[in-house]
């Protein structure tokens, strides 16, 4: 059952978040100055432990990044609850460490990686990506990570591998949204699974992500490790991933199982293919007032359109 939990602490008794962030920023700034004066980041918003990364100039955007506060309090992460503010309110006790990611299936060298091994696998890059939610809103987020292809190459996919399946942690103790209650119905089949074609997974844009806004990935954003596929609707980018499996058949995906006529396997951002119940032609960028036009492949057409030359995007939505 979904129980709305009111906080015992009145909101006015909590230190104002802006003040709190200022204090963190001050501390982080002071630390950065003390430790590495040359590397002090310009206006790094703080909140969690900092995570060093080099900005990749190939993946920047002219768009202003979404406010850190908005990107960490307005989330769809149904493992914590259906409301946008549930993840921020309920993720505090989530334990992103220690963490292992099992990478197996059709691979020559399947392996279970400790998170620390993953973090050392490749230099961390910062990339600014657009994020378009299937619900019609969007954000611009500076992620930190490295291409998923780096990890996949480590396990050496066999010739039979055609798809990749991602599985999110199943743990009703930590994820209240996964608990079965007296009145719970509808909902998704847990654990959450998502999938990509192997060529999509190997695409340089597909990012294995461990941080954002210059810091370790906050719990409500899919800590400690998630994928980000910027040309697809947000739900394709699985969070808190524990398993990455190479398969020969198209994996079953959580939203497709729940509503197959509404959420396809591909789910590429496409202003011309409406959700059956609403238009996808426009979106509201969080922080802006007027709607803006949604771009084909979320603006990444130059890089990814060639993946779909022989695919009817209306049929394979």
């Amino acid at each position: 059952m979904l129980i709305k939990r009111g906080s015992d602490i009145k909101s006015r008794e909590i230190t104002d978040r802006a003040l709190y962030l200022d204090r963190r920023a001050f501390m982080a700034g002071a630390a950065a100055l003390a430790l590495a004066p040359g590397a002090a980041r310009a206006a790094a918003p703080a909140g969690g432990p900092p995570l060093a990364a080099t900005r990749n100039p190939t993946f920047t955007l002219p768009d202003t990044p979404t406010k850190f506060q908005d990107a960490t309090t307005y989330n769809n992460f149904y493992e914590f609850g259906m409301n946008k503010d549930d993840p921020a309110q309920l993720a505090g006790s989530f334990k992103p460490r220690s963490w292992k990611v099992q990478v197996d299936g059709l691979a020559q060298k399947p392996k279970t990686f400790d998170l620390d091994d993953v973090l050392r696998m490749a230099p961390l890059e910062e990339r600014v990506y657009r994020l378009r939610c299937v619900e019609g809103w969007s954000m611009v987020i500076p992620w930190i990570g490295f291409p998923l292809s780096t990890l996949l190459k480590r396990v050496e996919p066999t010739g039979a591998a055609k798809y990749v399946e991602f599985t999110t942690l199943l743990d009703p103790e930590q994820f209240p949204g996964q608990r079965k209650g007296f009145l719970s119905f509808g909902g998704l089949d847990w654990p959450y699974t998502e999938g990509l074609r192997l060529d999509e997974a190997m695409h340089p844009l597909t990012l294995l992500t461990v941080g954002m806004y210059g810091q370790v990935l906050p719990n409500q954003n899919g800590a400690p490790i998630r994928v980000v596929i910027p040309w697809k609707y947000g739900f394709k980018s699985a969070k808190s991933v524990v398993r990455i499996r190479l398969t020969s058949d198209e994996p079953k995906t959580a939203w497709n199982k729940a509503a197959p006529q509404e959420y396809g396997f591909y789910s590429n951002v496409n202003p011309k293919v409406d959700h059956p119940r609403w238009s996808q032609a426009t979106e509201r960028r969080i922080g802006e007032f007027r709607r803006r036009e949604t771009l084909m492949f979320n603006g990444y057409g130059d890089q990814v359109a060639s993946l779909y030359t022989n695919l009817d995007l209306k049929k394979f939505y």
Partner: protein
Amino acid sequence: MTRRGRVVLKVVIWAACLAPLAWLGHRAWDGDLTANPISFITNWLGDWTLRILLTSLSMTPLRVLFRWSWPITLRRLLGLFAFLYVTLHFSTWLVLDHFFAWREMWADIVKRPYITVGMAALVLMIPLAATSTAWAIRRLGGANWQRLHRLAYLIGVCAVLHYLWLAKKANPDPYYYAAWLLVLLAIRAGDWVRRRAVRLSAAPRPAPQRGEGV
């Protein structure tokens, strides 16, 4: 119920129906309308429209079940508050969400079933709000007025469908409202059957008082 009791009841209804607006104003003042204020305002007003509308539709069933007369005196007030909220809900969509993009909105009304039924509910509420005065009842005559105001149930059905069809599959909330409406409709249907049976069996005697005064 005493006159004093009725006054207290109305004051309570006024306070209860204005509280969600006051709360919204308070959150706006605090700058606490979430990262997506327009969506938050729309949903907040929509939720409260549905709650107040279904509460207004619950008054007659309450009388049927418990033979209280006081709920009937609250129907008009609740109905008008539901109309206030739906007007604000619609205005948010019109002004804040689409900023008078008429063509886009018309396309949505025609193409999206959840918007079609939502608009239908809104449009059907207009004549009901317009004929909510004692003058209008006299003008229309009680029977006509009553027939017109049975539209309230159709409005309830449209409003519940509006929410059912727009919500994601995983969201159980619209089903609770649907269950609420079904219970109300079942009580009204049961009452209709009972009255018919009474009328048929006691045809020569004078018909029982309907007592559906305003």
